[in-house]
Structures are given as C-alpha cells and as structure tokens.
C-alpha cells in the first residue's frame, strides 16, 4: 500500500512540476507557478521519506535543515544584481549532489549491470561538469574570475579522457574506485575549461545550459533508482532548459554554438563598437530597457538630431503613450540647439502631436533630473556631452547641456559610437549610469513599444 501511494505521490508531483513550469512562463501567473512547483517538490520530498528501508533519518533531517537555512538566508540577503550568480551557485550544488550520489552508489553497484553502470557514469560526469562549470560562471559574474583563452582541443581531450576512464571502469572486472575519482576530477576540470573562455556577457546563456545539464543528471539518477519523479522532473528541466537556452541566445542575437565555441576574444563583435581606448561602453538590449522604462516612475526623453534623421517622432510618441498608460510619467527635455535648426525638436514632436506641456526647457529639466529614474537619450550627442562643462579644451566648452547623468539611469539610443555635429567623443557613454542601446532610433523605439506592451 505504501509503495503504491509513493507512486501516486510522485505522479502528482510530476503533474505539479509541469503545471508549475507552464504557469511560470506567463508574467501574470509566474508567481503562482513557482508556488505550485514548490508544492510539487515538497510532496516529492515528503513521499521519498516513505521509501521502504530508509535509515539515517536524523542525519537526513539535519542535512535538510542546514540546507534550508543556508538556502533561505542567501536567497533573502542577496542583492538584486547578484541574483544570477546565486542561481549559478545553487545549480552547481544540484550537480554536485548528483555526482555525490553517483560516488556513493558506485560502491553498491553490481559490476555486471552495464546499463545501470553507464547511467551512473553519465551522472558522475555530467554532475561534475555542471558543478565546476557553475562555480566558474558564478565567479565570472561576480567579477572574480577573469576571461582566459583555452585551447578547445585541450578541453575536448580532457573530456575524452574522462569518458575513456568511464568506459574502462565499466568494462573492468572489479571495482576501480580510484579510477572513478580520477574520472570525477577530469570531469571537474572539463567544466572549468568549458566555461572559462566564454565572455561574461554570455553567462546567463551558459547558466541556463548548465541548468539543463543538472536536469539531465537528475533524470539519470532517476533511471538509477527507477524513480519516476526524478526521471520525469529531470527530463522536463532538461528539455525546458535546453529550449530556454536557445531562446535566451536568440533574444541576445547570438547563436548558442557561437557562444560556446568561440573564444571571447573573437566573439566581441558587438562589444568592439563600444570601445574607446580602454573604456568600454555598456550595452543594454531592448527587453531590459523596456523593463527599466516600464517599471520606472519618471522617465525623461532627450531627443536630438538622430531622432529627426530616423524620423522617429511618431515612434517616440507611441512609446510615451504606452508608458503613460502603465502609470509612468514621461516628459521631454529639449535642449535649445538640439537638431540642426532652431526649434527642430519642436517641429518634429508637434508633427507627432506630442503635447506642448510635456516639453521642458533645459534649465527646468536640469533641476528635475535628479528625481528622474530613467533618461532616454535618443539620437542626441553634443547636447548631453559633459565635456561642455568639464573640458576647457573642447570645442563645445561653455555650451550649457542637459546634465542627464544626474538621473538614476541613462539609456542612450544611437546607431554606433560615432560622434555628432561637433565631431567629438562623449564621456557620457562611458558613465557608469549609462547603457547604450544601439540601432536606428525608429526601429529601436518600435521594438521598445512592443516590449512594453507585452508587460
């Protein structure tokens, strides 16, 4: 009877997992999805305690208690910005657990069950890779681990060796614990080599991939014990994680193979555009910009000549309207010489029927900027160039500017890092508060409109 109930409990847990992931993929129901998945997990754990012949209960409970405290504590205290690191860390823990199970289990294994044996070896290798890879990914995000160029062939050799060892252990007539440890060590090294050369910007994709791998180890562990909940949960996480990896890469306009198999040196296609000497401008994508805008209280748009060139006046008004619908206050900061003729911005914005009340003069705007969450500079350059204030040798020194870096965040929309009318570089683009959103103003703004609409 207990056994049957365990089966049913696992079955229900799997259904909860599926529902949980499903709900989690829609913004309105995401929180509910997380709770349902959690319920499924609690059920699965609870049920597993009824496994016949379970011993060391106290030890188990202690371990769980410690893990719970640690997990909760770190999750509650982590800073918003450090969350991806933490996810990576947690993921590594899962991989490590799977590898540890494999190690313990190896002792108990009947030597001749090649099927189970292979599954076990897979658990060991994948779990170890996932563990060490996750740790490096975390380090990279934290800024502790630097990018290192790694010879691809070396990496594959290491992996090959680990697999060869696994095959040897499987074929061997008697247990070879030492070889097993060696194999684990090699797999750990491969994990390092695998993640080391990938650029920090691509880490989220890598973490998603590693997460998918942890899912696979869960599934293999499930096979080992003929445990449905691990098997199914693992497959779900594995397949969902893989798709998610592809989607994330796509959203960043990268291909997965590009990310994984090109060293950061040559993969800096887009980053190079934002480099000036040793200064590097930080990029942002449309989605993240949309989030920043949609969840801001006050947004200021600073239009410049580029808005006119792109003929993006209608698009910017659309964005304004949709943000206002979401409760964001939007105004425009108009610099007196923005554009190429006096009143250029007025002509432009009047054409798309932007209300006159929303156009704020430079001096008034400079006072309002400190209370502004996001400034969106669209195709403007000289009129927001701090050199006008700071650099007496600059040709624009002495011109009053819109001091946009008084605001909390600055997003600059332009096509490249090239200069404006005055032909000079702009330190604003390298300001810690600034993110560059590259592209034609009209296209970018239309993209932002669709994104904000979906929120």
């Amino acid at each position: 009877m207990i056994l049957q109930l365990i089966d049913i409990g696992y079955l229900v847990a799997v259904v909860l997992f599926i529902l949980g992931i499903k709900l989690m993929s829609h913004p309105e129901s995401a929180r509910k999805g997380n709770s349902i998945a959690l319920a499924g997990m609690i059920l699965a754990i609870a049920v597993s305690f009824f496994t016949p012949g379970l011993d060391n209960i106290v030890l188990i409970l202690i371990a769980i208690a410690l893990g719970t405290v640690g997990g909760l504590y770190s999750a509650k205290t982590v800073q918003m910005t450090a969350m991806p690191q933490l996810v990576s860390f947690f993921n590594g823990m899962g991989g490590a657990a799977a590898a540890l199970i494999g190690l313990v289990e190896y002792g108990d294994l009947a030597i001749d069950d090649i099927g189970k044996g292979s599954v076990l070896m897979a658990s060991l290798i994948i779990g170890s890779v996932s563990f060490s890879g996750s740790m490096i990914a975390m380090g990279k995000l934290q800024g502790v681990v630097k990018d290192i160029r790694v010879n691809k062939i070396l990496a594959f050799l290491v992996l090959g060796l680990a697999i060869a060892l696994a095959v040897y252990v499987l074929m061997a007539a008697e247990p070879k614990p030492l070889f097993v440890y060696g194999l684990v060590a090699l797999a750990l090294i491969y994990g390092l080599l695998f993640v080391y050369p990938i650029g920090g910007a691509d880490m989220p994709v890598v973490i998603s991939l590693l997460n998918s791998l942890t899912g696979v180890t869960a599934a293999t562990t499930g096979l080992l014990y003929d445990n449905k909940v691990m098997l199914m949960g693992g497959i779900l996480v594995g397949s969902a994680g893989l798709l998610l990896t592809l989607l994330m890469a796509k959203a960043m306009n990268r291909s997965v193979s590009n990310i994984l198999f090109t060293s950061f040196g040559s993969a800096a296609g887009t980053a190079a555009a934002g480099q000036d000497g040793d200064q590097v401008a930080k990029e942002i994508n449309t989605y993240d910009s949309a989030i920043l805008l949609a969840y801001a209280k006050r947004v200021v748009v600073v239009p410049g000549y580029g808005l006119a060139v792109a003929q993006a006046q209608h698009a910017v008004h659309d964005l304004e309207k949709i943000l206002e619908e979401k409760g964001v206050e939007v105004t425009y900061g108009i610099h007196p010489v923005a554009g190429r003729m006096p009143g250029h911005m007025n002509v432009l914005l009047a054409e798309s029927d932007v209300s006159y009340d929303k156009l704020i003069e430079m001096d008034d705007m400079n006072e309002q900027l400190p209370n502004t969450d996001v400034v969106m500079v669209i195709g403007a350059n000289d009129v927001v160039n701090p050199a006008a204030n700071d650099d007496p040798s600059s040709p624009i020194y002495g011109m009053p500017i819109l001091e946009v870096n008084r605001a909390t965040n600055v997003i600059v929309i332009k096509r490249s890092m090239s200069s404006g009318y005055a032909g000079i570089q702009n330190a604003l683009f390298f300001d810690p508060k600034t993110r560059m959103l590259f592209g034609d103003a009209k296209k970018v703004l239309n993209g932002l409109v669709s994104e904000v609409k979906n929120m």
Partner: protein
Amino acid sequence: MILGILKEPSPETRVSLHPEAVKVLTGSGNQVLIETGAGDSSFLSDAVYQEAGATVKSRVEVLETAEMIFQITPLDAEDQKKLSRGKYLVGVYQPLVARELMKSLAETGVTLLSMDSIPRITRAQSMDVLSSMSTVSGYKAVLLAAANLPRFFPMLMTAAGTIAPAKVLIIGAGVAGLQAIATAKRLGAVVEAFDTRPSVKEQVESLGGKFVEVPGAVEDKGAGGYAVEQSEEYKQKQSEMLEKSIIKSDVVITTALIPGRKAPILITRSMLEKMKAGAVVVDLAAANGGNCEGTENNKTVTLSGVTIIGNSALPASMPEDASKMYSKNVQNLLKLLLNEDKINLNFEDEIIKGTCITHDGAIIYEPLLK
C-alpha cells in the same frame, strides 16, 4: 446652348468657369464665349480658354449673344439693361439681402440662378459654393492672421530663448471655422474653438482642437445644420466664457453667422481692450456686420493695439483655386440643368427649385414670397 463668361469687376479676381469646365461644356455641344481678360486675375489667360474651346469676345458681345451668363458678382444696372427676356444668369446674388435687385431682375424676365441659394442637402454638396468658398476663407484667414501677428504660431525652443506657441481661438465652427482650426493646428498653434451648436464639439476635437463649452445652448435639428438664435441668458453666459478665452488668445478668428440675420457681436470693445497688444482678430463675418465691435468690412483696423482684419473677400485673394472650386460647383449644377446642350429647367428637382430666384418675369424663390 451659348454660355458666356464675364470678367468680374474689381476687386473680385475669380472667374466663374475654369478652362477645365469649358472643355467639358464645349465637348457636350455647347458654345462658350468669354470676355477678353476674364481669367487674367486668376492667372488664366485668354489663350488657355481658347485652347479649351472658348471664343474670346468683348463684354457687350458676350452679354448680348450668350443665352446663359456667368458672373459671380451681381450684374450692375448698366449690364442689366443689356439683358433680354429668357436669358439665364448664374452668380452669387444673396437674394435675401438684395431684395430690390431681385425685383428689378425679375422684371427684365431673366432666369436667375443664385449659387448661394442651393439647398444644403447631401446631393447638392458638390454645387455648394458656400462650403467651397468657406474652405478658402477658413484657410486664408489663418494665413492672414499668422502674417499679421508679431509672434510665431508654433512653439520654438531655441538658443535665443523659448517661444511659446500662439493661442488661437476660432468662434463658429462651421465649414470655415473647421478649416481654420485645421490650418492653425498645422502651423503649430494651440487651438480652441467655440460654437453654439454643441454637436460640433466632436468635430472640433476630431481636428485636434479644444472645444470651449458653454452649457445650455439650443440646437435646432430642423435648421439643417445652421445655428439658431439663442436665449438672452445663454448669450450672457456665453459672453463670459468667451471673454476668458478671448483675453488670453493671440489670434481670434470669428465665423459666427446666423442665416438671414446680422452677425452676432461676440467680441465687444471692452474685450478688445483686455486683449494682448499685438493680437489679431480676423472677422469672417465682416460682410454681415462682423462678430467684433469695430470691424470694418474689407478693411484692416487697429483698436487698442489689436489688429482687426475685416477682409470678407478672402476667396478673391486666392483666385486660382477659388475659381477652380467655384467653377466645379457651377459645372455640377449645370449637369442638372443641361441635357447635353439643351436646357431642362425641372422645377420638380429640389435643387433647381431652391436655386432659381426669378423666372419668366416673376420672383419664384419661396423664402422671398413669404
């Protein structure tokens, strides 16, 4: 049929029929005579008319030969003498105003078709000179105002300071008023409009203008879209509301008319005194007495620093397109009147009945008979 186009007396610059219309009319078998230089002030030369099939003649010849005579301005006594019984006259005669003239014309025995009397029913829209000329006036009024205002219309934020947009108030949102709203909006002004008919609120807003609401107006659906006389109490309230808008405006364009009456005074002298120096009033109702105290018809005057433009002949200041539109209206009326080149005066037709003022020696226009 022999059609005759006369040259308009100054200051009128339009011409009744455009060469395009002449081409169509001669094409269907009519003969078209045109007085020498009739099109000159509309930038249409005699040569162009000849190309279209017209024959250039002297004024007298046209008056005597043509069976149907076109002149926008009513014919003067001199010309009338040259008319013989049975001829047709097409022009803008304002029969309800020029009652004496109607009587004398009836006596000459001509059939007078007054373009401004065409009933404003849906089918007659294409012949409606009031609408087409109001379109010109509404547009031109704004241009005149902008040219005379010592300020910019649009907002400009420049290195030499920020220029606030001009505030334009349109009183009377009929055809001319709506066109004025659209034009002023185009130029970047902040536009408000007022009308006694609350139903035009939506129309004003559909052009991006703001409607000044005065609660309690009477709208007579029976009046065919025209305004009706309002109660004293309402007029009082209206005046107060309007004053507020007028005082803060840089430009006021008035078009308020009630058919057959003197135009209502909406801007009083005391309001003028409170207006900004340099402000401009364009009074399109000038010919009917004006909506502004102090308006002089066809003159520009300055009172308390406010420029009041009483130019009621705005279509004449844009003769080429105004002629084109007027001619199109006439041409559309002729489609009803002429069967190829034969006249067909079908009094069963609401439009012909409403347009025909005198016929066969008598006045037959109903509003004049009552």
